[in-house]
């Protein structure tokens, strides 16, 4: 593993709870690991499993999804929908060789800035132990067995987008 490995964690935070918690952590000047790139979504139920796989395929070492506590979702049960997908998706990525710890889901309400700080720090430490995932690099290595350049447009984007 590279010496100074800084994990890249793509975070999907629900607008009404976890994103506000991140805001609170910010204005309260709480320090936490600078490892997350946050995408604000209107509800954790908006997180499509495709987003998660796409993040890994583009070089994320971990994906963190934050939503409102059960019962608090502004769209009533978006977070339950996410929870169900998440339980299945964890099994799926594990069978495809991605450690399930790289995918995490947390309920963090708007007032829980400290919890956000703790979750990000914890997850960063965990991924540091696991090491980098480096899927774009692996894709390129797999394709060295091809005999000419490939034409896969999507992978060209993956290769140049990181």
């Amino acid at each position, binding site marked *: 593993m590279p010496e100074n490995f800084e994990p890249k964690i793509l975070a999907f935070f629900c607008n009404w709870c976890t994103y506000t918690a991140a805001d609170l952590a910010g204005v309260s000047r709480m320090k936490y690991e600078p490892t997350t790139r946050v995408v604000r979504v209107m509800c954790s139920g908006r997180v*499509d499993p495709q987003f998660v796989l796409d993040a890994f395929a583009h070089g994320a070492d971990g994906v963190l999804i934050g939503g409102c506590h059960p019962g608090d979702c502004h769209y009533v049960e978006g977070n339950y929908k996410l929870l*169900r997908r998440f339980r299945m*998706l964890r099994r799926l990525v594990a069978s495809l060789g991605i450690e399930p710890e790289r995918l995490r889901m947390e309920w963090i309400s708007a007032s829980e800035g400290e919890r956000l700080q703790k979750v990000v720090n914890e997850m960063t430490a965990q991924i540091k132990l696991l090491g980098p995932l480096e899927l774009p690099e692996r894709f390129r290595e797999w394709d060295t*067995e*091809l005999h000419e350049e490939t034409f896969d447009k999507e*992978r060209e984007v993956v290769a140049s987008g990181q």
Partner: protein
Amino acid sequence: MGNKPKIAFYWCSSCGGCEESLVDMAEAIVELSTQIEIVLWPVAADFKKKDIEAMADGEIVATMLNGAIRTSEQEEMARLLRRKSQILIAYGSCAYTGGIPGLSNQFPREQLLKYVYHDAPSVVNPEGQDPQTEFHDAGRVATLPIFSEVVRSLDQVVDVDYYIPGCAPNPELVLDAIHALLSGNLPSKGTVLAPDIALCEHCPRLKTKPADIAIDEFKRPHQHLIDPNVCMLVQGFACLGPATRSGCGGACLKANMPCTGCFGPMSNVRDQGAKALCALASIVAGTTNEEIDSALDGIPDPVGTFYRYGLAKSMLRRKVNMEPTLSK
């Protein structure tokens, strides 16, 4: 014969079902043969690779290639046919998204070879021989193609113009495609030549599918009696109809089996398995990990369920933590 449009059919890593689907066109293919000139069709006609090599680039109007790309020979043929064809069509699930052969992207190459040549119960190999890419005997050399680490869809190797989905495609879709080719009435490049709508919308059981379903147990089709008139999901069978493109005529549902997704996703989906997982997991009953997990236990093999035909073309492409041992 001279002026008829030249068409080629070719096969790579496939089961033969796609060839069957061409033959299933029955009289239609006989009629077609007066309008087209078939220049390559290994299953039925004796043309050789050198016949294709002798052609000018772009001389073939269209090639329909079925099967995934697994060996160096398949890769070479795919590149050759790409060069010689104006239009290259990925024919069937394997060429389109990797298909069933793509499921072997869960295992390292060495493990597959070991099983197939040594450990499988039906193997007789007393000398423990392994296939070699080169064999020398009395000054002569016999060669075999390289068996690659990764199974690929056709468009992961060469540029593809159109896709005909299905395991195997149904004859009506193929005929429509050939007629579109002959009339020059083609949609924009990259189009999947099948309706861009979910199978559910064309399913006779749709009227029994309520807006809200809560599945508390996924059942496996071989362990239960299936009501032939009620939506599979309502009965607890993992039907991929909500996340699968229509166009198959609902063949599996007519045979009282749930859809397994061979037509691939709709055009707004980039990862078939992730979308199918999303569709099915979202309607599981329960609000706690325990309740949800117990329902999901009925899907013991998520890769085989959601990516039965789509693993090679998925965003992760294969099991990601196998260290390749490249044979080049």
